[in-house]
């Protein structure tokens, strides 16, 4: 009996102390009841007044906005090159929305790999947007230099996506590959990147909606952007002069400049 008397309080004390070591609470920093001291999430997070915005990318070919698709013969409107794409991918990141009050809301961990072969990747979901009215959008084409120099990343920036140069650290920010009778080798392969100095291709763009985008808990509006794949050759010209770029440099910068000029705001919905 004496031993039981001893153990029961001991057990109770042990349990209390043990659980107090792993304090439970809301561990999501974006929640209104975020608890800094909580080590373990208990599902109590409350997100008041947040909605979502979808950025919908569409891919077109040329100024006339002809349809773009993979494994389809396309004629370049300016160079008249015949091109059949097998791969068309690019990074878009760091979305921000401007409130009607003029301040910018920043989407955290905002990295997306748009891959034409995976239709779902063309709908970029920005969650946790505070309820309110927005007038402008800002985003980065490519991957900012910080993420190119900070070691192992995850999600869209994982090396498993095959958008990373191993021998000279950096993200392949745009990848366009395919075949063309105009290329001397019969195929083309443009891997564009570069995040520092003259070779930097990371570009920030901003568009005004010309209207108000209203975000509520129940309303998830859309921002529509269009990417003109043909515009990559706006400065570069015909691929008959060269159809492979696999490193940062002046050529990649010229191709990227043309390409990024072809990403434009279409409307909101």
């Amino acid at each position, binding site marked *: 009996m004496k031993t039981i008397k001893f153990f029961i309080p001991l057990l109770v004390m042990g349990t209390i*102390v043990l659980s107090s070591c792993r304090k439970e609470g809301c561990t999501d920093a974006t929640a209104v009841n975020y608890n800094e001291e909580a080590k373990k999430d208990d599902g109590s997070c409350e997100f008041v007044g947040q909605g979502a915005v979808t950025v919908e990318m569409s891919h077109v070919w040329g100024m006339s906005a002809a349809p773009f698709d993979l494994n389809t013969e396309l004629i370049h409107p300016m160079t008249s090159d015949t091109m059949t794409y097998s791969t068309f991918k690019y990074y878009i990141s760091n979305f921000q929305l401007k409130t009607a009050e003029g301040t910018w809301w920043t989407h955290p961990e905002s990295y997306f790999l748009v891959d034409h072969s995976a239709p779902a990747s063309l709908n970029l979901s920005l969650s946790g947007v505070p309820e309110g009215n927005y007038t402008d959008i800002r985003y980065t084409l490519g991957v900012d230099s910080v993420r190119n120099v900070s070691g*192992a990343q995850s999600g869209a920036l*994982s*090396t*498993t996506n095959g958008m990373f140069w191993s*021998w*000279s650290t950096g993200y392949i920010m745009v990848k366009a590959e395919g075949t063309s009778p105009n290329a001397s080798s019969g195929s083309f392969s443009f891997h564009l990147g570069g995040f520092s100095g003259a070779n930097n291709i990371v570009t920030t763009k901003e568009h005004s909606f010309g209207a108000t985008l209203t975000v509520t808990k129940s309303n998830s509006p859309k921002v529509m952007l269009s990417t003109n794949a043909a515009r990559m050759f706006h400065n570069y010209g015909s691929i008959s002069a060269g159809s492979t770029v696999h490193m940062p440099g002046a050529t990649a910068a010229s191709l990227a400049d043309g390409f990024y000029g072809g990403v434009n705001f279409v409307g909101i919905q």
Partner: protein
Amino acid sequence: MSKLIYILLGVFFLFSCRKDLIENITPFEFNAPDYFPTLHYSFNNNEVTQEKFDLGKRLFFDKLLSSDNTISCESCHAQVHAFADHNVALSSGVEGRLGFRNSPTLANLAWSPSFMWDGGVNHIEIFSVAPITDSTEMNETMQNVIDKLNADASYVQQFKEAYGVNEVDDQAMFRALTVYMMMIVSDESKYDKWMKGKTSFTQEESAGKDLFEQKCSSCHSGALQTDYSFRNNGLDAVFTDLGRGRITLEENDYGKFKVPSLRNVALTYPYMHDGRFFNLRDVLDHYDEGIVASETLDPLLTSGIPMTEEEKDAIAAFLETLTDYELLNTYWLNQ
């Protein structure tokens, strides 16, 4: 009596929740002598734990990282050779394919600001992508590696314990490998014991140290004998390997390679980026009388580094003191 036990237990539990006390008794942590340079790797996002280290070690020795399951990191970075290759000029990858540069030692990478002979890799965490995906090394895709690891329940469990992830991902894999590599610290050589005042140099070693400081230490500087700069040390007039220039695309950098640390240099022959010199005397002879002029030759080497044969003997004796035999026998770095 029993009340006293409760009080004691209560006090014990109270303290067990205090993080600082727990950390003080952690038996496994990163350590280095105070005379080493400023640490480059930040452990902020990747604190050393026993679980991460054990996982990193398992990955380091696992041939699953290669396309045909024949090559591991350890294949070309062996502990018996101070984590360099087995005294070969170029390393063999899958199907015996030869790489194009010599595999350097992995010791003391925590202090290195860049990686590879040309400094093309800017962070140790993403270093491993290069050997894993290179067709002359492991020849594997990152997706396949992650799939293979996820197919092994014991790996999935180990990743969960080390990084709290339910599925293996490349970020956790790279960070685990990094923890293992960061723990390869070579700081028990005779030179280190001398630095700590635990031993003295022979007359020849001491003379060699003085000569080394006069003739070599403007590039091989500090306690790790490198300033991590890129320099052309007069190997060739025509560059078959552009070295640093391959990364920066600047003509000014053609033929430049990273100044390597000389820790364990006696064990890590052959030398230079292509392993052209098989012994230390060849290297010293090169600096004495073999410097080849070119556009980007380092200004410090335009007249070579004149040395008598006796001076070379003494410098070689000093370089031998940089050998860390304890590193070769550190059991916990081995499988």
